[in-house]
């Protein structure tokens, strides 16, 4: 296949599948006369999406801010913790169980606790997003810092490199691709974390993210609007993921650049 037609297939086939599913969904709703509050037709959802577009956009912006700040904090603190882990095996052994705890703790269970401690505010949302999204960064960056190429390590040792030089000139640049990999996983998680936290912050009037809108719509049994908000959540996740990927591609271009191959 030519590159253009291949690209067309990559874009068109998921879209066609979506249309197909929407048609089946619409027919099911029509044929079995499913009540709107249980399953609205795709048309009703699209309508709700259009009618509430400004509300949803505003809420998405707020949630995006929380998720993005959470992701940036995860990237910074996760990397710092990973650097500490790479420098001391004692620290690694002592702290690793607690890092795993971050990964296994049910976020729905500790979000209410965090709200009690930190309040119904932006800070709490960010905190939850960080707790849920920091683990992939720590684990990926730590393994990136520790598993450096043996020959490169020997090269540094032979020149009598200090621990610091080894870290700055070898370990950290080696681990950069692992950081991007971790952030890709974390980007989805930070959106989930922000939305879950927003469920608990509720309609206090102090905060209006996508999660708060969803709990409000659910209380009023406004299913089409709830599903419209769900679409907004998904788009938000995709947007953040794409952003991280773009950032990664720019940063890592140096690592993987292959254009202009020179042969002898």
């Amino acid at each position, binding site marked *: 296949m030519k590159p253009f037609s291949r690209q067309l297939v990559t874009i068109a086939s998921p879209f066609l599948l979506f249309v197909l599913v929407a048609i089946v969904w619409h027919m099911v709703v029509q044929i079995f006369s499913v009540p709107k509050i249980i399953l609205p037709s795709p048309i009703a959802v699209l309508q709700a999406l259009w009618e509430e577009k400004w509300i949803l956009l505003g809420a998405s912006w707020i949630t995006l801010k929380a998720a993005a700040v959470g992701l940036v904090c995860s990237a910074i603190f996760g990397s710092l913790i990973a650097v500490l882990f790479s420098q001391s095996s004692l620290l690694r052994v002592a702290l690793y169980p607690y890092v795993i705890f971050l990964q296994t703790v049910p976020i729905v269970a500790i979000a209410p606790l965090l709200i009690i401690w930190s309040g119904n505010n932006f800070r709490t949302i960010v905190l939850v997003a960080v707790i849920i999204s920091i683990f992939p960064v720590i684990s990926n960056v730590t393994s990136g810092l520790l598993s450096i190429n043996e*020959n490169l390590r*020997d090269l540094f040792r032979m*020149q009598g490199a200090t621990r610091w*030089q080894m870290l700055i000139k070898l370990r950290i*640049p080696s681990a*950069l691709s692992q950081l991007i990999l971790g952030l890709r996983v974390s980007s989805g998680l930070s959106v989930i974390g922000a939305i879950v936290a927003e469920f608990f912050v509720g309609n206090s009037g102090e905060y209006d993210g996508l999660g708060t809108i969803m709990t409000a719509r659910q209380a009023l049994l406004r299913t089409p609007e709830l599903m419209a908000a769900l679409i907004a959540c998904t788009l938000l996740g995709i947007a953040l993921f794409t952003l991280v990927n773009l950032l990664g591609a720019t940063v890592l271009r*140096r690592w*993987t650049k292959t254009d*202009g191959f*020179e042969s002898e």
Partner: protein
Amino acid sequence: MNSDLQNEPKGLIECQGVSLTFRNGKASQQVLRELELKVTEGHIVTLLGPSGCGKSTLLRVIAGLIDCDSGNVTIRGSAVSKKMPMQVRHEISFVFQESALLPWRTVWQNVVLPLEIRGQLHEGNCRSRCEELLEIVGFAKSDWNKLPSQLSGGMKMRASIARAMSTSPKVLLLDEPFAALDDILRSKLNDLLLAISAQRQCTMLFVTHNIAEAIYLSHEIAIMSRGVIAEILDVPFRFPRDAKLRSSSDFAAYYGIVAEGLIASALTRQVTEKGIA
């Protein structure tokens, strides 16, 4: 130094009774067995032997990357170990298998890396020496800012050699540097190495399992087998080497002798080991 006072002429690199056993839990494998080797200053010596005979390990012991269990390794009379003083460490340089360039650094940044680590980059003629080296190994100035991923295997190896020479080492250790390259490229790089050795008066210890390469490059070939130097052959061809040498009948005849020595050493070791068992 003490060793200089003795009458017997000393080699630049000397290994005396070097033994090393790798242990992994209960399993252990003796890699070097009371190995003896002397490399004369300015010479190129090739360690030739089958895979797994301990060539690369010996090279790493001489580089001070692995400590041996017993025996001693000296360079100009100073003991080599993981904890050797900087001034001994700085005499040695290493060319790794598969070039080992840092992928995020340009050719230039890779070549100056050893000097950068030592903090000597801004001293005296270091920069001009690196520039000169890049020219010698065949880099056009426009390619200095290329990344390793933009280079072919041969060019990567050239950059790697320039990096190893950037610190003006007295001893250059090479661990099968050209194993992944095709024959034509390999012979080009052999000539480059000979030119550098002659110009910079650098002693080289070269690991390979390619017999032709061993003959073409070296003053002496040390045939290694199961952790010892089984035989040392003085290569009878004059320096500087000429590319025509490879196609001469003398070369072919000598190739036969070396190959025979290689096979014989492998066989006798097997026999003696069976005898012990």
